[in-house]
């Protein structure tokens, strides 16, 4: 358990004044990451995306830690390059500081275009933490569907139309793909539970090897809800078991947040404009399918964690 009182003493290393939207969850996620890091030296890399374009508009930067962005699909390869430089220079005695490495990428840069780069970096075993800020679509370019977009969601490239009702496919289970890399630490977390997320960041950074956290990061614009509800929407994703908070440490599963009463998926869906069309009576079957898929996946996760 991280103590909020202790954490509040840590220096803030992302400044206010960046250009992320009001109600954007990514700002909170990065702030919590860097507070959790504490006094540890870190170098951050980022994929192209909302976070990068909003925090580094030249000649300004919101980052008080070394920050590097080069392209969209290569945040993991980039971080692995920085970490390799560190290993080399440290071994040669040219660098004295202990430094940790964090790569950020959105779901587009992680699930889709950056998957190969991420897989390679995880397999090679670099000591780095990859954090996917997963807002379930290409929000920076204007809400296009990604392989993280959930079934039924309206996006601008899988829109609701006369014959189609948003995205027709279920999302890819990236967390499971990374677990299959057999790296020491993999977790799912969400914005809206600082304690859950910050503990995971600290645990990930303490591990000598690659680690990955997939964080559900609501986008008030793409998900179309009132900006004040960001934390609430994310919490509902966990309470409905749509996005379970769990971790896999050296192969051992643990569900970190078990809802007291598992809520219906409609509680989550109804708050967001991207699912509005699902509440037409003709689309009731889609909600049923979503519910039954959530039930199936939740059961499967519980079985894995019950060992």
């Amino acid at each position: 358990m991280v103590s909020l009182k202790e954490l509040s003493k840590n220096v803030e290393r992302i400044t206010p004044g960046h250009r992320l939207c009001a109600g954007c969850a990514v700002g909170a996620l990065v702030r919590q990451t860097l507070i959790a890091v504490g006094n540890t030296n870190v170098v951050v890399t980022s994929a192209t995306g909302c976070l990068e374009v909003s925090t580094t508009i030249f000649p300004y930067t919101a980052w008080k830690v070394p920050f590097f962005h080069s392209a969209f699909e290569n945040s993991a390869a980039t971080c692995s390059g920085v970490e390799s430089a560190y290993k080399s220079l440290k071994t040669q005695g040219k660098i004295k500081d202990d430094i940790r490495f964090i790569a950020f990428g959105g779901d587009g840069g992680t699930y889709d275009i950056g998957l190969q780069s991420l897989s390679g970096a995880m397999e090679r075993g670099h000591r780095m933490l990859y954090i996917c800020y997963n807002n379930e679509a290409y929000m920076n370019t204007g809400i296009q569907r990604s392989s993280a977009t959930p079934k039924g969601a309206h996006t601008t490239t899988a829109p609701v139309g006369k014959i189609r009702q948003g995205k027709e496919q279920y999302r890819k289970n990236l967390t499971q793909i990374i677990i299959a890399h057999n790296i020491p630490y993999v977790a799912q977390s969400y914005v809206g539970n600082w304690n859950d997320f910050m503990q995971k960041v600290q645990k990930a950074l303490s591990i000598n090897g690659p680690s990955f956290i997939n964080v559900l990061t609501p986008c008030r614009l793409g998900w179309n809800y009132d900006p004040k509800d960001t934390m609430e929407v994310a919490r509902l994703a966990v309470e409905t078991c749509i996005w379970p908070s769990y971790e896999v440490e050296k192969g051992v599963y643990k569900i970190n947040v078990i809802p007291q009463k598992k809520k219906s998926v409609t509680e989550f869906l109804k708050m967001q404009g991207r699912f509005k069309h699902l509440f037409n009576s003709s689309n009731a079957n889609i909600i049923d399918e979503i519910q039954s898929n959530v039930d199936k996946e939740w059961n499967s996760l519980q079985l894995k964690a019950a060992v």
Partner: protein
Amino acid sequence: MIKTIYSNGKIIAKTGNEIVAEAMRQIEPDVVAAYPITPATEIVQIFSQFVADGIVKSEYVAVESEHSAMSATIAASAAGARSMTATSSQGLSLMWEMLYIASGLRLPVVMAEVNRALSAPINIHCDQSDTMGARDAGWIQIYSENSQEAYDNMIQAVKIAENAKLPVLVTMDGFIISHCMEVVEVYPDFDVKRFIGEYKPDRYLLDVKNPYTLGAIDLHDYYFEHRYQIAEAMKNARDTILNVANDFEKKFGRKYDLYEKYMLDDAEIAIVIIGSAAGTSKIAVKRLREKGIKAGLLKIRVYRPFPSEQIVMDLKHIKVVAVLDRADSCSGAFSPIYSDIAASLCSTGIICPKIVNYVYGLGGREIDVEHILSIYEKLKKIVLGIEKPSNKVEYINVRI
């Protein structure tokens, strides 16, 4: 008995790939991130063995693609490490996006590039379509005629990159040089290391006490100025390259310039060429000279930055020039080197020699002395007024 030029030099027999790996062993970069591709594979294979045997203290990152190879090399360089990679053809194409980022961020990455044709159709043999495709990427491009040049160019590339703050690629022709055993003079490790010196970046990501943001977004208020600075850096790199060549000559005795003139000063007809075919062309020039024909050759070593003003001064007295490209730009007009030469000549306003454009050797197609002689024969006829210079790309040794 072949003699060394440098007092402490040693003559050995190596293939192009072996000698480039040998240069990398001596340079001993902090990080090498690479991915195998024919015909460059041996370079990183041999280098990996150096790492495995503890001969070098470099960190070797066996990445999962060339895109990641260039990404990791760029990142290692940004982090403060001297970093290198090697590739060829499709590998370079996959790096394309990252090539512009390496130069845009002014990172002194060095890459060994083995020239190979681009797909489709897939072909593993030599032409220069790959690096010609990267000619606008903001990389200094240095071409090597043989293994000795590849070795010397690699050593110089490190100093050039770090002084010019631009990435450098050193090329050699696939198989023709990369897999051909040649006699090369190598210099002692200590002398090479002393020549390149220690890398001391002004600022770097691992300097955590002085954090900075690299790779920020430029909007319309800064982007143009930053791109202008890159163009300026490329222009200024000419002097850097010449200074390094000068230091290299003083130390090791071999003279290098932006391009090489071979019997050019009094020539009436000349060929401009790049890479290994320059060797073949020199034999042709020699034969013609024996017959009293005033043939000459200009071999480009540094293609980027393009030494336009200097080349113009050395070509202006020639009556007819043939520019030979081992790459076809498929532009519907002319090929890369020809376009650069023509533009350079035209821009000066001085009387232009007649220039004709040839494309040769795509996908490893043979180019021999007879082919080169036939080109000089054409040039002679143009001088005599028997033939008119062609105003389109002419192809050598292709079934049309």
